[in-house]
């Protein structure tokens, strides 16, 4: 049976996993839209840096990015500065009060790492969606007097988003699973809580299977929600894919 103590700890972990998932999902979608626009810019000075940044975000493993922001960056500073900038200040105190995290900087660092990694993947997906669109879409918008930027934001990006939504959803579910990596930098999300409980009770097998079951349920719930969004996104009258 699950003790009341374990249930409270799990609830806290699940809340943090969901919170991090929501935050990184929204942040990476917004960033990915801006970056896709930059990657498809006719100006090389805009396009080239965006392309490089996307390659770095995508190809450096999420865990390495999380460790970089959480552990490596603060080490650039001397002990006193480090404490003042990353740990003991009003901003971190406020963040700690909102999230309940004892060391809010690590939570922030993990969120940054996850967001950038997911942004890289989403940008690549969106770009393929926009790139595969018939040129007439852009021509039509331009003929109607839209600027290139307006055509991109109002026509190409939304259409690309709709057509690639299945790939985007599976990446977002992957991002939810990746929040477990935050436990590596001492963030007590679901997997961190499970590990903490294992050290406390040594009941490893049961706790790991319980945690796995919770992740399966979360992944399933997220898929259900994203499927509903997918159906909503389809223009009325179009034929739903695969069924």
């Amino acid at each position, binding site marked *: 049976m699950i003790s009341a103590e374990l249930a409270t700890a799990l609830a806290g972990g699940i809340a943090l996993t969901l919170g991090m998932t929501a935050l990184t999902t929204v942040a990476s979608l917004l960033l990915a839209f801006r970056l896709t626009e930059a990657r498809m810019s006719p100006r090389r000075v805009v396009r080239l840096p965006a392309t490089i940044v996307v390659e770095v975000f995508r190809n450096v493993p*999420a865990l390495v990015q999380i460790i970089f922001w959480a552990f490596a960056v603060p080490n650039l500073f001397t002990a006193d500065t480090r404490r003042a900038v990353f740990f003991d200040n009003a901003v971190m105190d406020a963040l700690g009060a909102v999230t309940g995290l004892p060391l809010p900087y690590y939570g922030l660092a993990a969120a940054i790492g996850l967001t950038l990694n997911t942004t890289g993947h989403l940008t690549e997906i969106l770009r393929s969606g926009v790139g595969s669109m018939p040129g007439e879409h852009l021509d039509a918008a331009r003929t109607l007097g839209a600027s290139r930027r307006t055509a991109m934001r109002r026509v190409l990006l939304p259409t690309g988003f709709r057509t690639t939504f299945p790939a985007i959803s599976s990446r977002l579910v992957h991002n939810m699973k990746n929040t*477990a990596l935050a436990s590596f930098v001492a963030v007590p999300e679901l*997997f961190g809580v499970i590990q903490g409980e294992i050290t406390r009770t040594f009941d490893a097998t049961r706790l*790991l299977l319980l*945690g*796995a079951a919770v992740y*399966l349920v979360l992944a399933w719930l997220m898929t259900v929600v994203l499927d509903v969004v997918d159906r909503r996104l389809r223009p009325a009258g179009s034929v739903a894919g695969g069924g």
Partner: protein
Amino acid sequence: MGDDVAFVARNLLDLLIGLPAQRPGGLLLSILLSAASLSVGFGLAVIVASLRDAPWAPVRAVGAAFVTVFRGVPLIMLLLIVHQFAAGGLAGIDGSTLRSAFVTLVLYAGAYQADIITSGLRAVPASLVEDARVLGASPLRAFLTVRLPYGLRVMGPALAGQAITLFKDSSVVVVLGVAELTTTARIVLGNDVANAPYWVATYLAVGALYLFTASGLSTLFARLTDTERHTGLVGH
């Protein structure tokens, strides 16, 4: 600034091929571990994909459950679960962590590859397989000589993408302490406060190694699948 470059240069060989006592390690072990898991995982994936297309519903359910479980649970957690069952101990206590990491990556890669194979096989025109059967091929032979090779060419790009993803995901085996690239970086930096100024440079180097290897693989695969397209069955 110069100090951290010197630090990275001094430890570069260890990051590339592992610490002297644990070779092969570092990037080399990341590559070997991924390649081995992908190859064995592919065999597993073909089996799982055929289960999912089996004529008997309970068999199909087993195939589907396998994919759901190994795609739905975070890799970092799968590693601990497999290690728990295989070694019966907590991470890092026992010497068989490499075996646990390998088994987990096989299962994980197998689940993702099975998904790709399933959709690839479903894209093979049924008439092709029927033609083979009419010409006297057994179901197994028709599968191995017609359906699988034809499907594989369709799946090429997706399988290549999955291979690169697995290589990057292999960084997570650091949780078991397997001395591949990410773990080697941790060992090289250690707990020594004197190494603190070198953390950023070391992780930038680790990131660059992953980035170059992944981009290199992606260029290589693009060339391979392109050649396959021109010489293979899918002639357009």
